[in-house]
């Protein structure tokens, strides 16, 4: 009997130690490879389940890279968007960033650059990748005259519309704001919700406000308010806010838009319950190549540029910007190889991404030589003719101000704040930085 007790006792201690050890292991692992082989740790955010095509292209590029560079191995870790952001933050706090990973531009990048976590990639921009980016894209990853990330995607926001619904009521894609308002009135009279908007996510409403500001005050009024060369109390920015509330008063947006997520709004548009939907060009596959969407619906979708307002504004000026980009960690043990991988990745990505995954790459692609759906060619042409691309406001701003902006957008649409206060609170938040 006594012997059994001793056994229980010791196994108890042993088990608890084991649990403790299991909890602690993994933190002390060496990140570089052993021997002459080198390992690049690479983290991306396109899981096989939700982004199959992206995932496949990345795997192909990695395989090609490993074949071309014997002795170098790429160790992959994949997480979906939100988990990716959280994990990146935790890893950077404990100085364990992967050698290569994905980042977003401007505001997201800022704390990592200030914390000296990312390596500068200017040597790549001057060397291998010289002149390969669409102008304005790599610049969004620059801080203090250095570039810390290289973009993979470029998107502009456009108004998608349902041609079938428009035809039914004798409507045409508008070029002026009066025509646009006329469309809204006509649709409302016929009981069709004009615009699908999921403003629970708030950046969706921000797109509307940004376009309004762009058309009323010109391409740089918002940018200069954010970079402090101008003021957010600029009359154009206040008028833009007023116009947004006018649209709300006209019932331009679906009912309860402030409580709907973007996904819900999209499903209303895709279910032909709403006629228009302002969204980034990352949504193009849904209206062109995505086999899960009925062909008939895909054929009935067109897009137009946000109309001019009272004769002001330039139809070639867009709201948009680069999506994710690649970074190399400052503390990486295999920095040389990591940079080489980034360069290789970006060179391979462009054409593969647009044909394989429907991504509009940030690198220049010769659209004529590729077999692409018409809507892609149109968007690519728009991009090459763009007079200005204003980076998404919440990306331009630092994280703190971006939250203020997004909250105020929701209040503005919900009429919880007056246009003047809307501008003033932005100004306060921006000047406090």
């Amino acid at each position: 009997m006594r012997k059994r007790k001793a056994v229980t006792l010791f196994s108890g201690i042993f088990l608890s130690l084991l649990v403790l050890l299991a909890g602690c292991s993994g933190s002390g692992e060496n990140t570089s490879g052993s021997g002459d082989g080198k390992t690049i740790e690479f983290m991306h955010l396109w899981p096989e389940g939700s982004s199959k095509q992206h995932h496949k292209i990345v795997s192909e590029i990695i395989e090609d890279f490993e074949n071309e560079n014997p002795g170098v191995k790429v160790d992959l870790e994949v997480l979906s968007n939100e988990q990716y952001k959280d994990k990146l933050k935790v890893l950077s706090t404990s100085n364990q960033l992967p050698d290569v990973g994905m980042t977003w531009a401007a505001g997201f990048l800022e704390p990592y650059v200030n914390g000296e976590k990312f390596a500068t990639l200017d040597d790549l921009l001057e060397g291998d990748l010289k002149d390969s980016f669409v102008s304005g894209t790599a610049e969004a990853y620059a801080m203090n005259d250095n570039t810390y990330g290289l973009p993979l995607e470029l998107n502009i926001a456009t108004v998608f519309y349902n041609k079938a619904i428009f035809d039914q009521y004798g409507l045409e894609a508008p070029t002026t704001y009066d025509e646009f308002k006329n469309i809204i009135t006509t649709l409302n009279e016929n009981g069709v919700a004009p615009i699908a908007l999921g403003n629970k996510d708030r950046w969706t409403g921000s797109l509307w406000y940004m376009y309004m500001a762009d058309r009323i005050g010109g391409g740089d009024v918002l940018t200069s308010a954010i970079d402090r060369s101008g003021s957010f109390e600029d009359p154009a920015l206040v008028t833009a806010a007023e116009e947004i509330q006018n649209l709300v008063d006209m019932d331009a947006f679906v009912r309860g838009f402030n409580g709907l997520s973007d996904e819900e709004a999209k499903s209303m548009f895709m279910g032909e319950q709403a006629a228009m939907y302002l969204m980034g060009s990352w949504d193009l596959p849904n209206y062109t190549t995505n086999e899960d969407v009925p062909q008939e619906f895909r054929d009935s979708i067109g897009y137009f540029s946000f109309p001019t307002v009272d004769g002001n504004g330039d139809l070639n000026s867009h709201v948009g910007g680069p999506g994710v980009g690649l970074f190399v960690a400052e503390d990486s043990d295999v920095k040389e190889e990591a940079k080489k991988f980034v360069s290789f990745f970006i060179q391979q990505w462009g054409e593969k991404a647009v044909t394989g995954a429907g991504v509009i790459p940030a690198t220049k692609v010769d659209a004529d030589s590729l077999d692409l759906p018409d809507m892609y060619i149109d968007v690519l042409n728009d991009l090459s003719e763009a007079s200005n691309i204003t980076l998404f406001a919440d990306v331009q701003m630092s994280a703190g101000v971006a939250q203020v902006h997004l909250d105020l957008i929701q209040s503005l649409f919900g009429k919880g704040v007056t246009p003047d206060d809307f501008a003033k609170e932005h100004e306060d938040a921006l000047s406090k930085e």
Partner: protein
Amino acid sequence: MNKVMSNKWIIALYVLPALLLIGILIFIPLILTGYYGLMKWDGIGSMEFIGLQNYVTALQDKKFWDSALHSFLLAVFSTLSLIIYLAISLILASKIKGADLLRKIYLIPMLLSSVAIAQLWVKIYNPSNGMLNSLLMAIGVENPPAWLAEPSLVLYAIFIPILWQYAGFYILIYYAALKNIPESIIEAAKIDGASPIQIAYKIKLPLIMGVVKVTIVLAVVGSLKYFDLIYVMTGGGPNGASEVMASYMYKLAFSTNNFGYGSAIGFLLLIITLIVTLIIRKATATKEEIQY
């Protein structure tokens, strides 16, 4: 066995593993949170010590107090809803037909994950296609509200699924407590001519008072730190109308990169919860427990 247990070292040895785990996983992070609250820190770069400034800012932050008010409202509603749960349990515990099945039905929401419940109710509340508004329109309501988009309604619209989610849990606790009351006491009361309501109010309720007190603490503390349904259903919006303390803390720390301030809010949340728990314990303390 007695010999083993009388040895203080052995006791310590048995207690130690669990204590270590709790210490590492709960108490050290707690202290660290309070410590981070003293810093100006974006969660990535270097920290800067700023003393109590974050706590002072929090106490003057209108948004924080708004969110605290919302949390307290939730606590009040959760506590009041305990009465309904108690009534349901009293009915279930008396011998009625189908009580077994009903008990299981009440328990089902508890088996669902919060995110699934949130998705379910987001669909129910959908302003144009949702079940609730379709129903309201069918019975002739012209313009049913957009539940999750109205700042004046959203908070209460979210309370309903939260209360629904936990109903099964409290009903189960009350049910078990009521089933523990010896049948002989009830029999005696019946013989003395007590009505069912008198039995419930004068006999059953006092006997399970200890359990009721525990559930009040659970409901209040659970409400004060409540996060998940609100985060999924509205993210605290619109215009911060459904923001609670925990969602505000999360937003500050993870969305605005203001880790120091977020930690300070988190620590304040802990202090507020502790104080409220103490008050409840004091308020419900009785000199003697009623025994069977």
